[in-house]
């Protein structure tokens, strides 16, 4: 009787082992198929265009940018100043300049991420990876490419109570986030 019991326990353990092995193989095959068939649609460039349009419409409605009406504290929180919610992963940089050069920089987000764009841009142009010697198929990393858009337009600027003709450059960067 005790031998039967031991055999039954052994049988049960053996069955659990077989099921675990089967599950591991099934998940491995599923993982490979998921990787092969997966496809990421990239709309980050479109998002960058829309954000640039929203920011420029907020700052310069009717073609006039009232810099005097924007508090210096808001210079680093320009997306929040325009009441745009849900903008994590965005960097927006606005350069306001006149004929003498830049007079104000408005921004929000991680500007350090701009180097990621330079990285991808250099890979696309050269066709090679940045790693020494080895050429990597850029399609493998293209899906991680950030979205980017730059908008440049002339505008009337109200600054220090004076109206001056100047330029606004709006730069938007959208990080890859899964």
């Amino acid at each position, binding site marked *: 009787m005790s031998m039967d019991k031991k055999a039954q326990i052994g049988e049960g353990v053996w069955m659990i082992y077989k099921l675990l092995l089967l599950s591991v193989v099934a998940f491995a095959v599923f993982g490979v198929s998921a990787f092969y068939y997966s496809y990421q649609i990239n709309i980050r460039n479109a998002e960058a265009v829309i954000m640039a349009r929203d920011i420029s419409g907020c700052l310069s409605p009717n073609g006039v940018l009232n810099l005097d009406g924007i508090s210096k504290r808001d210079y680093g929180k320009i997306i929040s100043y325009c009441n745009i919610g849900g*903008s994590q992963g965005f960097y927006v940089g606005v350069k306001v300049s006149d004929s003498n050069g830049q007079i104000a920089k408005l921004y929000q987000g991680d500007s350090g991420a701009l180097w990621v764009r330079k990285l991808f841009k250099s890979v696309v142009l050269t066709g090679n990876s940045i790693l020494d010697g080895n050429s990597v198929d850029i399609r493998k990393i293209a899906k991680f490419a950030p979205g980017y858009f730059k908008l440049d337009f002339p505008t009337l600027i109200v600054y220090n109570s004076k109206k001056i003709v100047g330029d606004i450059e709006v730069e938007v960067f959208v990080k890859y986030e899964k």
Partner: protein
Amino acid sequence: MTNKRGSILGKVLTNIILIGIVYAIFFIAVAGRVNGRDVKQQILEKQTALLIDSASLGMSFFIRSANINGFVSDVHIDNNKIFITVDGFVSQSGYPYFSRYSINVKKLKNGFLVSVNG
């Protein structure tokens, strides 16, 4: 002797049923991938997110349940993300949108109405 045959049959049947369950789960998951349900869901979520991003105050748009990308059974918004369930494929992470307005989703008879309010 009868007991031995009966017990072996029972064990084999249990084995077959358990293995069958694992295979069924595996094939259902792979079929979902191969049929591109996740791609169709991506298309719907990202199209809707772009519409919300570019919408002005007072705009609304209607997502039909009987959609070209599959049957849409659920559309909801949570924490500035849009989640759309297509052909039973539930969205795990959604897709983020940005807007200066408040977005509402209302379930109607034949679909979902997404409206942009102040």
